[in-house]
């Protein structure tokens, strides 16, 4: 079946512009995660959606970052007034019910470059 998809695969933007990154999770998965992977570093948790519960936004690095998940499926991560330090690969993952023991299925990522 189809896996997690993300778009765009690459995005180059100018400092100060807004960007939107999209994630399509696996159909039927209620949990969705956003991570950031900077060069030479591990994955940094950003935000977690679980069903209709309030999302865990504790990983968002600043108020320029926000995310939505409409209809319990597609999610959009928005970065406003982008800065050069926002350059990274943004990864989305989904899992069936969001339990601690579940496997997360990752998308291929969006590589963001802020000039």
């Amino acid at each position, binding site marked *: 079946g189809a*896996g*997690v998809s993300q778009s765009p695969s690459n995005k180059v933007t100018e400092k100060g512009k807004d960007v939107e990154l999209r994630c399509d999770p696996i159909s039927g998965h209620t949990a969705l*995660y956003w*991570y950031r992977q900077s060069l030479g*570093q*591990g*994955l*940094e*948790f950003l935000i*977690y959606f*679980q069903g209709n519960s309030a999302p*865990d936004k*504790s990983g968002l690095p600043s108020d320029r970052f926000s995310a939505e998940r409409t209809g319990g499926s597609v999610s959009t991560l928005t970065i406003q007034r982008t800065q050069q330090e926002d350059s990274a690969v943004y*990864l989305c*993952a989904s899992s069936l019910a*969001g*339990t*601690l*023991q579940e*496997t*997360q299925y*990752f*998308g*291929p*990522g969006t590589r963001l470059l802020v000039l």
Partner: protein
Amino acid sequence: AQSVTQLDSHVSVSEGTPVLLRCNYSSSYSPSLFWYVQHPNKGLQLLLKYTSAATLVKGINGFEAEFKKSETSFHLTKPSAHMSDAAEYFCVVSLVKYNFNKFYFGSGTKLNVKP
């Protein structure tokens, strides 16, 4: 406080020799533990996971890991490295914090396999 520590950022082995990638975690409770692999220009994929069943966990591609509570470790091993094992490996611990499920990724270990 760091929840998961990967002790080596780079490991280099010769093809056909054993692989050992080290991971230590910190948790007040028995966590769930995972190893994910990321091949160049590909998404993260689950190798194996420990969820409080057998302490020796077998995964894909001949990898296995042993949960040692007394040592708070979850080291990844493989008896004989193959060229195709060259990738970056991430140890992950999941636990509940502030009523949210949290997934903490280690900083990653890059495995190089020499012919």
